[in-house]
């Protein structure tokens, strides 16, 4: 029964991973940008939330309402300025700029918040409480909420991409940037919107992570980025639900690994990632074969 519990935990935490992964997948699918600073952005959002709660004393749930749009706006600006300039130059420049951004954010956070871990406390008993099924299965309410949030976000994203004008434009620009230009679309603006969505969703993930676990400045690169990337690869690029599936598979693999030995949690996930890379590099659900 402990295994069933592990699997359930893994599935639920897959939701959090999906939140991290969808922004990474979007930026790569649309702009061909591998955002090495992606994880650090999540951590940054978490720390901003901590800062806001400490200064203004708003309820935690309200911090979402502030931080997510702020991060989304930041995403648009960063994309239109830094990332676009890098894209205009070369792939290497883009990678270096993103790496530079990652280093700057991480060390900036280290400098101001020190390496100590922080959590986003809510004072709500809901957050720490859990319910049981049988004697061996214990599920934290928070985790269920996070998973539900991830599903809602993905549904919203899918609706946006398939039904709205800008969703179509994003898909069109991803397919053929030049043809979109010829149809009158400024692809830099469309890129900006995609980046805004990516930054916004990863901010959501970062705050959720701060509530579920502890934040520390290096978590962005130690865990979040690599897990997000693993989820994208396992699930397959180009598919939103693929990132959820990838997150779930990653989460389950990790929890099973933890059952074997508590220190093997992350390792188990990466081994599954490497296996997928070797056996089926296009992922489990792929709309486009990864070249």
């Amino acid at each position, binding site marked *: 029964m402990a295994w069933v519990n592990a699997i359930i935990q893994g599935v639920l935490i897959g939701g959090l991973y999906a939140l991290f992964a969808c922004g990474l997948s979007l930026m*790569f699918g649309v702009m*061909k*940008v*591998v955002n*090495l600073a992606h994880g650090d952005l999540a951590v940054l959002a978490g720390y901003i939330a901590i800062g806001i709660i400490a200064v203004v004393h708003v309820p935690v749930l309200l911090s979402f309402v502030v931080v997510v749009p702020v991060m989304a706006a930041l995403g648009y600006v960063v994309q239109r300025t*830094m990332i676009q*300039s*890098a894209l205009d*130059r*070369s*792939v*290497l*420049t883009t*990678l*270096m*700029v993103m*790496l*530079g*951004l*990652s*280093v*700057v954010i991480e*060390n*900036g956070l*280290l*400098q101001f918040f020190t390496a100590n871990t922080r959590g986003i406390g809510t004072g709500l008993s809901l957050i720490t409480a859990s319910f049981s099924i049988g004697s061996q299965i214990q599920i934290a309410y928070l985790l269920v909420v996070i998973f539900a949030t991830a599903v809602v976000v993905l549904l919203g994203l899918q609706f946006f991409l398939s039904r709205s004008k800008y969703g179509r434009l994003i898909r069109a620009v991803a397919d053929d940037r030049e043809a979109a230009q010829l149809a009158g679309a400024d692809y830099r603006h469309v890129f900006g919107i995609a980046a805004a969505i990516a930054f916004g969703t990863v901010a959501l993930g970062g705050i959720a992570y701060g509530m579920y676990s502890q934040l520390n400045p290096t978590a962005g*690169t130690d865990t979040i*980025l*690599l897990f997000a*990337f*693993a989820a994208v*690869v396992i699930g397959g690029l180009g598919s939103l639900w693929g990132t959820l599936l990838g997150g779930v598979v990653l989460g389950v693999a990790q929890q099973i690994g933890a059952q074997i030995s508590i*220190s*093997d949690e*992350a*390792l188990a996930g*990466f*081994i599954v*990632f*490497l296996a997928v*890379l*070797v056996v089926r*590099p296009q992922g489990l659900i792929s709309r486009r074969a*990864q*070249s």
Partner: protein
Amino acid sequence: MSLATDTTARQAGTFRVTRSRRNVAWTGAGALIVVVVLALFPYIVYSGTTAILVQAFIVLTMSSMWNLLAGYAGLVSVGQQAFVGLGAYFVLILAIHGTSPFAALPVAAIGCGVAALPLWWLVSRLRSGYFAIATWVLATTVLLIIEKFSSIGGGTGMPLPGLSGYNPALLTAYTYWAALAVTVAALAAIYLLLRSRLGLVLTAIRDDEVAARSSGARVGLARMLVFVVAGIGCGAAGGVLAISQLQVQPTAVFTVVWTAEMAFVTIIGGLGTIEGPIVGTVVYMVLQQTLASYNAWYLIIFGLVAIFVALFARRGLWGLVDSRINVRLFPVGYWLRLDTDRPRRLRLRAPRG
């Protein structure tokens, strides 16, 4: 005036292809003098200075390797710390079994070269961005696996055996010479590699991969060779790191900060030239020494400078110098010398990015 019309117009004359504009014998002699002077340092300067120089040599070796990967083979790796760590651990393992860490260095380097093969197999099919993160994941995986073995220190690390018998002053000198030797060997290897046929293949790949393939160049093989060489180089640097720190601690040797430093030093100094990492290392050391007491600040500023240089001075500091005075300390390009007047440069190497 195109080259074609130029050469046909001078049909009566001849031309030849040379390696450099001036006689490089003097640069070779100069390099030798520099190395000899550096080798004498332990007799001349305080051990504090040699310790700083050891750090500089480590960074220079790693950056030169990263430059080889990214600037010549087009492989942007964010996982080179895997080899830094493996090099350190190979030295540790050999030292635990009784070998002197200094003697273990070359063996560790070769061990890293061998380890590079399966790692290459895992990531070789991936393109740029994916390749970058996949190498990072790979490095983290190697770290996690190594941390499981408590006999080599587990998650907390352990001191490096075999060094306690040395006189401290002698130890710093030996460490310094080991670092110097590794750096000289690394730069020499890269220089010779790029002047060889492999270097020609790499330049061809960099300029136009499809054309290179259809001309018969073994692109995959060339890239693999470069990856292995970079693995050996970073591994050697990792071994020196272990010796200089007198201990091997997993999160310290496997941290991605090494790759960030390699990348930034190369970008700032100048990608795609052998001189670039040298310039970049100087900048890095200056920054680090002046800001040392402010810990994270030097990395923040370093990162900002790297971003700035990547966007606005793509050929780096050496590139700025190079375009003005047109000197190569390490000539790996070709010159076309017509039998009249000044030779005109046949630019077979174009900077990347």
